[in-house]
């Protein structure tokens, strides 16, 4: 396979000398140098500073999501008590993995109360920067604006917004990422096949697309929620399997357009396999609208989750998510600006950075922009 690729690119290399229209095929295939296509893309991508910033923010967001327990928690990171060092946050993981058990004296305790009651001078403790867990409920402190105690304020039942925002990134990022990945993948494949092959493949795929487009998403969600436990996973899957038709249609449209372009005809004439033409030559050229669909899809998945929370069908109410913070904000309007501003900004940051990343990737993958 690898060998074939090399030989083909050589042939094309010659061809392009006369036919500029074949430039894309040259670019989309491994160049004359030993650098692979994706290495080229990577090099191109790194040149785009804005896109790199987007990537860094995305990575930071994911890092935040993964380390949420260490950033916002009511358990101390490290605690020296009676001459012994404890790592309660880590311990939590160990207990969860059934590697360890809680000592009776530390079971379900509030560390803050415990420390206030039992600490002597030689003891010390180090809390995470936000020393509330997302479900630390303090009813007396409900609806507090940002303060030194609660950096981003509290919600309607006195939970710390900063902590919920940090932990909520898990749900919201994975809703966006997983749901969109599911539907972009399905959509790309079905759309590509339908657009490229046409005929009976197109007819069947198009009917499938049509049927899915008309299946009432909301009813599907209600049905799923009624049968299966309320969980973020089910919501991701439902969003994922109901949204692919749009991507499929976009891809199909692009393929219809692209398959008659010169470079495809040329590639076919050169004996490239369908698989290769679809995924190597045409697909990179059809990604532009799909990237937009995906970036907006991520935002829209996060917002669908928030609308579902608003209607009561979202994640369970104690699970923190950006959407659920936003929907609780609505009941407090016109007060409680902090309940909208911060999750709103988080969504904005995610959407924008995904978009910058997406556009950067597209440009890098676009052969014509190569210098």
């Amino acid at each position, binding site marked *: 396979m690898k060998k074939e690729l090399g030989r083909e690119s050589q042939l094309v290399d010659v061809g392009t000398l006369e036919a500029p229209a074949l430039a894309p095929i040259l670019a989309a295939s491994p160049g004359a140098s030993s650098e692979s296509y994706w290495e080229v893309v990577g090099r191109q991508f790194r040149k785009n500073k804005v896109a790199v910033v987007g990537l860094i923010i995305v990575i930071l967001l994911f890092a935040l999501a993964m380390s949420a327990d260490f950033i916002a928690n009511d358990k101390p990171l490290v605690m020296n008590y009676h001459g012994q060092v404890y790592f309660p946050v880590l311990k939590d993981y160990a207990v969860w993995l059934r590697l360890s058990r809680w000592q009776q004296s530390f079971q*379900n305790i509030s560390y803050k109360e415990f420390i206030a009651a039992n600490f002597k001078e030689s003891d010390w403790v180090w809390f995470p920067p936000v020393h509330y867990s997302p479900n630390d*409920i303090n009813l007396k402190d409900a609806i507090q604006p940002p303060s030194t105690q609660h950096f981003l304020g509290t919600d309607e039942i006195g939970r710390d917004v900063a902590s919920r925002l940090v932990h909520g990134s898990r749900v919201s990022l994975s809703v966006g990422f997983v749901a969109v990945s599911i539907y972009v993948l399905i959509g790309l494949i079905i759309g590509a096949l339908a657009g490229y092959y046409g005929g009976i493949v197109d007819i069947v795929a198009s009917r499938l697309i049509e049927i899915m487009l008309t299946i009432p998403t909301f009813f599907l969600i209600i049905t799923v929620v*009624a049968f299966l*436990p309320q969980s973020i996973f089910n919501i991701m899957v439902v969003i994922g399997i109901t949204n692919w038709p749009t991507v499929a249609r976009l891809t199909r449209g692009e393929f219809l357009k692209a398959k008659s372009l010169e470079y495809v005809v040329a590639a076919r004439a050169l004996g490239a396999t369908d698989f290769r033409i679809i995924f190597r030559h045409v697909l990179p050229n059809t990604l532009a609208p799909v990237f937009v669909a995906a970036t907006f899809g991520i935002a829209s998945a996060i917002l669908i989750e928030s609308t579902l929370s608003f209607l009561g069908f979202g994640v369970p109410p*104690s699970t923190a998510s950006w959407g659920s913070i936003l929907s*609780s904000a609505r*009941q*407090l309007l016109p007060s409680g600006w902090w309940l909208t501003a911060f999750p709103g900004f988080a969504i904005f940051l995610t959407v924008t950075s995904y978009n910058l990343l997406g556009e950067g990737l597209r440009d890098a993958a676009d052969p014509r922009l190569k210098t």
Partner: protein
Amino acid sequence: MTRRIAVLFLISASLLLGCSRPDRPTGAGSGAAARPTSGDWIINRIDTEPESLNPLISTTTNAQYIQGGANNSHVYESMLQAEPADWVTPRPLLAESRPEVSADHLTYTFTIRDGVTWHDGQPFTAADVLFTFKAAVTPSVDDAPIRSYLTDLLNVELLDGRKLRFTVRKPYFMNEIVLGQFMLIMPKHVFDPQGLLDGVKFPNIVSADGKNNPKLKQFGEQFNKHPNNRAPIGTGPYKFDRWDTGKEILLARNDQYWGKKGYLDKIVYRIISDGTAALTALKAGEVDMNPRLLPIQYAQQTSGAAFENQFAKSPYTIPTYYLLAWNEERPFFKDKRVRQALTMLVDRQQIIETLRFGLAKIATSHFNPGTTDHNTGIQALPYDPKRAAELLDEAGWVDHNEDGIRDKDGVPFRFEMLGSSSSTFTGQLLPILKEEFRKAGIDMTERRIEFTVFIASMRDHRFDAGASAWSADLVQDPYQIWHSNSIANRGSNYISFRNAESDRMLEQARTEFDHEKRKQIYWKWQELIHEEQPYTFLFYPQEAAAYHKRFQNVSWLPARPGYDLNIWFVPKVAQRYTATNAQ
């Protein structure tokens, strides 16, 4: 009020209405009592549109308010209504007097009032009453809930021009109320002009051949979609004027009313679905009354000089309580000590303060404090996690395997709490419970589902625990919710509460016709329930209304919807809408 139903609610701060102290007049006019004068309109906000204004077919609360008002007298009327002094004793309305009851409590003879006319001018007769009951039991009429109250009604006969005799299967203290107050009387000449029901006697409708009678079938089909379901013709103090679908329903004063006439020229029920929009519309002068403020609106958004110059607000209590239901078929909830412990883990006072901004009182029993049946001697269990932990230990729920969750006989204390997805309150309550229980070593998972599915799960006993609310009328029979006979066959004893002593008391109360003696039974029964804690009674909610200050004679009633617009008026000088300037 048309039906004394206990309705399982979507606990949303929404669907509830009611009253607190009938003795306390509220509003600007309480001091200088102006003389009632007629004129002006009230534009009252409702949140959802009634599906129909046929009292047999409609099931939504808003439909019931427009049809029957607070005391069975608005557009339609019933034969009896509640005596406003105590809201328990029936008093005559379309009947001349309370019925004559036979010594065996099996026949009730009503004499209907003379000289009453329908809004279209036709005379009201006993035949209309007979027609209403016949229609109600016709199988092809879409009135399942009403029909289910009449399963004990064996016969209704016309004795002479104004007398009707009702025969029932068994003696029951609710019979007089079911016959006299559940049923708003509908005009026969409008809904059955062909006399399709005339040829069939009442017992024949109920019997098996009623289903196959083509005339009855035809009647049902016509009745269900009768045009007057959306343009009711009744006998009450207000008559139907106009229904703009999706916008508003207008009633106009019935100047030919046989009894005490209303004052306001028109009553407009304007549909504004969103709570924030409704308050804004009130402040902007587009509605005169918002009977159901959100608690936060009552506490924070309805104050200041600008508001108080124009509007008044008032909380009122309604016969409803919120609860947590523990399914006793589950191992965790079998022991009453566990149930008591769970109640002690819920900081009800703080929940009321924070989530309802003080608009509720801690609940102690099935009966609402607005009724004499409510046992005032019961002290609510305190919020006491320490004592709760001891009780759980005593009951054998100890964390043997040190995973942070209590267990007994190898079963961890892990259960699912169901809530309705439409309720914002549930969305706030569940995390609080989850966290509180977690601290006590109990693992609760939350699950919010559609109300339809919620009821189905509860009814089939497919749940561990559920957060919900019961809403009832002031006179009510707890049998359906608490008797062990109600566990099977769609009964409402979802939690499978079985207690021989409780069953005996409930049965005894059913045939006790003396209200005072019945009250004694119920007071004892409430002590038993308090001890058993089959539910965690959360609180009796209060609603809050905001309304324009020009209205006088504003009072809040213990029955839903909590106010009676038939008696509100506006002094001449303050009137806003007149025949000429009204929109």
